[in-house]
């Protein structure tokens, strides 16, 4: 019996060893071919600015591109089309798009890939992943590519979108699918309430007054979502309540949180007051996804939500609607949101170069215009708005320009080291305050403490 027991154990151990070998073997196998092909295919792929007219006889460099959308989602067709178009112009590079679900799933898959030493070559990720990616040593700075590439003009990108691509003097990503926060309003309900449908509220006071007037006929005056990434909405209120036009709730190097300033407390207090004091909005935490549904179904006259919903509202609302900057207190303001293109460190140099060519292509003016008009995201660079495609799109749908014009008042989304812990500390405390469990000052003080604890190791 012992013998057989031992044999089994041995077998088991053998199987485990095999499994272990399989993993590392796979990693090696994946790493080997590019370095072998490096010798015979170095020139055209290695220099990013080289012309796309490579000899078709060479085996193309294949790069993997992770994109956060559900398989079969509406954007997959757009991305597939852009990738195919890219390959037809650059026959030496083959792009394999992988659709990974939502932003969260996408990041989990990429992090798993990093740990297994098999990350994608290029990916779209939240702009806020920057420090996590740096702390896991997963991405490369793009400055060398940018310096060598005559076709790539950083100055053409909107500065508000570039803020979160950079830290400590280096650029790590290129803006791709970006958004801001907008005020959407139902023009027909404005008329019914005796308000001018061409004059949306401009200030906090007007917002309160309008919302009270619009709270009639069985619908709400205003809805602002309070769950999911509550910190994002909070950043909007915080900037609006601040007198300094450059203020944000974290430092630019992502090492310090400034959550509990008096101005921030006033900002959170206003958010709470909208429902509890002014009765301009339903009490408690309003669900992120329910808000656009309510707006489209005529259950609320105004909503504050991401510009990413423009296409959804445009296609589904059966009434005339307007969009505007979210109302100002001391100033206008909205954080930017959305995803950037990153290139990964574990990829071979020629794959990285190919990935850069792809990134450059995807964010070139024509593609930026195509992507913006077919998705509803804000075009990431100024010249995109000069293209014919964009002019046609914005002429038929001028609301799309509001999100772009707001970029003068837009700023960086909360992004720090240990971002998961820091942002969830703030989000949870905001929810506690909104649901009446605690007051604004205590909530932000608690969030500040938790954030400082999470950031302590990075301030040594």
């Amino acid at each position, binding site marked *: 019996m012992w013998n057989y027991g031992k044999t089994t154990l041995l077998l088991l151990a053998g199987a485990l060893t095999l499994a272990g070998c399989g993993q590392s073997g796979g990693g090696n196998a994946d790493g080997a071919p590019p370095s072998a092909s490096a010798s015979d295919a170095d020139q055209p792929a290695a220099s990013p600015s080289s012309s796309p007219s490579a000899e078709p006889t060479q085996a193309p460099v294949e790069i993997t591109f992770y994109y956060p959308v559900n398989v079969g989602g509406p954007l997959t067709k757009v991305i597939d089309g852009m990738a195919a178009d890219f390959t037809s112009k650059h026959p030496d590079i083959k792009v394999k798009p992988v659709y990974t679900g939502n932003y969260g799933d996408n990041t989990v898959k990429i*992090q798993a890939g990093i740990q297994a030493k098999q990350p994608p070559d290029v990916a779209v990720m939240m702009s806020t992943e920057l420090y996590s990616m740096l702390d896991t040593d997963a991405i490369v700075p793009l400055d060398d590519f940018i310096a060598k590439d005559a076709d790539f003009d950083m100055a053409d990108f909107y500065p508000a979108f570039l803020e979160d691509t950079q830290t400590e003097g280096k650029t790590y990503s290129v803006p791709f699918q970006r958004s801001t926060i907008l005020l959407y309003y139902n023009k027909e309900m404005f008329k019914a309430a005796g308000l001018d449908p061409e004059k949306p509220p401009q200030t906090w006071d007007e917002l309160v007054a309008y919302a009270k007037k619009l709270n009639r006929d069985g619908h709400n005056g205003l809805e602002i979502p309070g769950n*999911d990434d509550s910190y994002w909405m909070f950043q909007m209120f915080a900037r609006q309540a601040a007198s300094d036009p450059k203020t944000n709730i974290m430092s630019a190097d992502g090492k310090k949180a400034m959550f509990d300033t008096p101005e921030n407390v006033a900002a959170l207090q206003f958010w709470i007051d909208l429902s509890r004091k002014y009765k301009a909005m339903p009490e408690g935490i309003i669900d992120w996804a329910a808000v656009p549904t309510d707006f489209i179904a005529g259950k609320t006259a105004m909503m504050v939500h991401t510009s990413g919903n423009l296409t959804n509202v445009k296609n589904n609302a059966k009434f005339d609607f307007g969009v505007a900057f979210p109302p100002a207190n001391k100033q206008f303001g909205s954080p930017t949101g959305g995803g950037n293109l990153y290139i990964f460190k574990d990829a071979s140099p020629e794959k990285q170069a190919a990935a850069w060519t792809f990134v450059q292509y995807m964010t070139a003016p024509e593609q930026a215009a195509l992507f913006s008009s077919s998705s509803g995201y804000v075009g990431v660079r100024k010249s995109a708005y000069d293209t014919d495609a964009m002019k046609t799109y914005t002429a038929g749908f001028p609301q799309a320009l509001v999100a772009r014009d707001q970029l003068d008042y837009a700023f960086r989304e909360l992004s720090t080291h240990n971002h998961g812990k820091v942002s969830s500390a703030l989000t949870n405390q905001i929810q506690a305050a909104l649901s009446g469990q605690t007051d604004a000052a205590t909530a932000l003080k608690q969030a500040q403490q938790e954030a400082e604890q999470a950031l302590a190791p990075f301030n040594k």
Partner: protein
Amino acid sequence: MSAGWIERARRNAFGWGLVLPSLLFLGLFTYYPMLRTARLSLFEQDLATPKPLFVGLGNFAALLKDPVFLKVLGNNAWYAVGTVPASIALAFAMALFADKAVRGRTFARVAFFYPNMIPMIAVANIWLFLYTPHFGLLARLASWLSGQNVSLLGDPHTVLGAMIAMAIWKEAGYFMIFYLAAMQQIPKDLFEAASADGARKWTALRRITIPLTMPTTLFVAVIAMTNAFKLVDHLWIMTKGGPNHASSLLLYHIYETSFQFYDQGMAAAMTVAMIALLLLLSALQVFGWDRSIHYD
């Protein structure tokens, strides 16, 4: 002597041979990862410490002081208390009905069982709609009862209760199947004898049906208890654990810690704590209850 030994070895080899395939897979995909997790739980490994740092039981000591962990553990305890007895009782009642009902018997069985056939994610989407303020049936009912507009999932006081109601609805049908099978195993002459002796229906239920389905109750209780810790898929769809951790459950918090905070050492420590807790609970149920159960 030696012949006996060979004979025994041969028989054992046959046994091991039968067990081997599943043992291999269990070892690879269950026991090996468990051991690795147990090892990882002794290390500090997060975004600030990319190279694992041995901290002994430090992670566990930190857990005992972590208010979020304690809150989540408390939530899970309430969730178990809310779902386990209620879904078992409901399952028993439904099985009684589906067993006895003469007309519409098949319909009753299908209707009771169907929630279990829907994946948890789909259930979460259905119930998310039921709880949506203004639109959802249950949201309207709650608003009507309380006389004001309520958001059941947006209020820390009601969100866990809303989850419990959904879990009972989802689970009871599954447990009913086990009870139904157990009830059909009970010999009919027992009931005939009881009624010949003039026993009432209630007495028959109390003295025959309940005792004779006790093994099923034990089995179902163990399953229900582990499910209360295992089934957390709905949280992604419905609340993401919010507002302010009010609906977060242990397994969800482990996922969050591991894949959003990248705090792998802490996530491993919580996993070990959860495995220990589940082992303890099932051991208590199986060894504690076993004596009061009549097996035939």
